């Protein structure tokens, strides 16, 4: 199918600003799904609140646009109830690291078969450019006009520490590898976390000396490097991209089914099990 066959054209134009990276992520998601050949009726996309979450309305799948930070909890309910469906949860950095941080680490701990795609633009874009937990130290934001003093989360380390069984990072510059990573993440049986650095020229770029979206994409090109590259040894500040872990572990819905099986086999005598 063509990309447009996955899109609800009647809801266009979309709300994203010119130069926003989220459309690139949406396009990559569609291409990954097309390559995998998953039927549209078998995909549920659950999102939270923010620019990234509006992806839901534009995609022709079962789509659920929920409340801030809790998309993974809603997705857990859908998945446990219909484990055969493919669950994809696009989130922003505010959704994933701030209000939804707890849902993220517990979904990782449980290893439930959901793919979390975190579009990290280092800012709360929809509400006017407030600093988020991924705004870097010293970066400027409407709520940090003299520079941000909070240290930012490294979501890769966070997800690895919480036990996610698939963890990867890509950027909106590296579209070809992003599609490959998304294919692997969606196919992975367990909780997948894919961080995608996605530019927000309107609220992050303007305040932080990026003249345009092109400048920001160039920055992703020059300031990232494949995992374990020689460049990283020489320049430790480079951000690594690629797949950090991909491992087989018991999946939550499968484990839950086993418990149901076990419980239904126990005999009840005189009200006692």
């Amino acid at each position, binding site marked *: 199918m063509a990309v447009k066959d996955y899109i609800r054209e009647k809801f266009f134009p979309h709300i994203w600003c010119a130069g926003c990276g989220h459309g690139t992520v949406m396009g990559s998601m569609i291409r990954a799904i097309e390559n995998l050949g998953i039927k549209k009726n078998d995909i549920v996309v659950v999102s939270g609140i923010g620019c990234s979450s*509006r992806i839901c309305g534009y995609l022709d799948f079962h789509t659920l*646009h929920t409340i801030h930070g809790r998309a993974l909890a809603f997705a857990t*309910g*859908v998945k446990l109830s219909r484990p055969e469906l493919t669950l994809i949860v696009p989130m922003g950095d505010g959704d994933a690291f701030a209000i939804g941080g707890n849902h993220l680490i517990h979904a990782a701990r449980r290893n439930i078969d959901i793919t979390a795609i975190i579009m990290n633009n280092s800012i709360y874009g929809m509400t006017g450019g407030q600093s988020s937990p991924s705004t870097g130290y010293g970066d400027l934001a409407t709520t940090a006009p003299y520079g941000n003093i909070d240290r930012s989360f490294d979501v890769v380390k966070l997800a690895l520490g919480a036990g996610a069984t698939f963890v990867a990072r890509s950027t909106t510059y590296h579209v070809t590898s992003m599609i490959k990573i998304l294919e692997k993440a969606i196919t992975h049986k367990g909780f997948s976390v894919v961080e995608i650095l996605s530019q927000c020229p309107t609220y992050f770029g303007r305040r932080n000396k990026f003249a345009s979206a092109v400048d920001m994409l160039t920055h992703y090109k020059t300031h990232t490097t494949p995992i374990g590259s020689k460049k990283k040894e020489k320049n430790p500040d480079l951000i690594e991209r690629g797949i950090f872990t991909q491992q087989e572990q018991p999946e939550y819905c499968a484990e839950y089914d086993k418990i149901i099986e076990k419980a239904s086999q126990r005999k009840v005598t005189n009200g006692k099990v």
Partner: protein
Amino acid sequence: MCAIIGASLTGKKVMTATSGPGFSLKQEAIGFAVMTETPCVIVNVQRGGPSTGLPTSVSQGDVMQARWGTHGEHAIIALTASNNQDVFAMTVEAFNLSETFRTPVILLFDEVVAHTRERLIMPEPGEINVVERLKTSVKEGTDYHPYLPREDGRLPMSDFGGVHRYNVTGLMHDMWGFPSNNSKIIYGLTHQLVDKIQGHTKEITRTKEFFIDDVDCLLISYGSSARTALHVVENRRARGENLGLLELQTLWPFPVDAVRKRCASVNHIIVVEMNMGQIFHEVKKAVDDPDKVFLANQIDGSFITPTDVLNILRIIQGKGA
């Protein structure tokens, strides 16, 4: 709370339970279920509050939170019960009403009812009415409008994972479920959310009546307080005093007409509850003469006793405190 909404959208009947602070935490997601018209059942066993309050002593302080706990204009259904058999019956009712009206339904129990162990007779399958989800008859390939009400106001659903792919959002939305800020659509949706419940108050109202003929003084109560109220009524009837009890099992939408009708011919009304008068004020609003409504309450974490009610009754009867 979020997980049960997700599960409900796949076609399952769902419920969750909490007490006190947990009910506060669920409010945002309850609003989401209201806005998206997703059937679900929430049990809140009331304890003393606000905040961590009084775990785990009895209270009925969450009556107004059940009504207005989530933000924005909306309507809600809240049921209660005074004994275990009724807890069972009201739980079934809650599921039936949540499916019929596509709304979250709150089961507002209290600590005394929740911790009481008493006999429960389980009905046989088929003995009680069970409402199944109304599903769309629109075939695959034909446009399904998830938020286009039928003439009777009901919205047939389609399961996530089924043949119709649609959008569900907590934003104001059009008949496709797509976000909208068109004033006509907002007006229509707000009315849909409120009218589908407020307009069916009579159908949703559940009450029980005890010694309701020739009543001079009517007690109105609900939940475990109704047990105390019934004790007082039985006791006084034995002495020849004309007391009666109206037990409310539906708190929201408030059964205004049922209460007004029942109160019209009585001289005094005493509302018996464990808060500062959350239903007392609703009764005053409902009746023709608010001055004849009195409150007998208990708010110190202990269960309301017949003495608490008798103290008020004595004042009304001119016998002093």
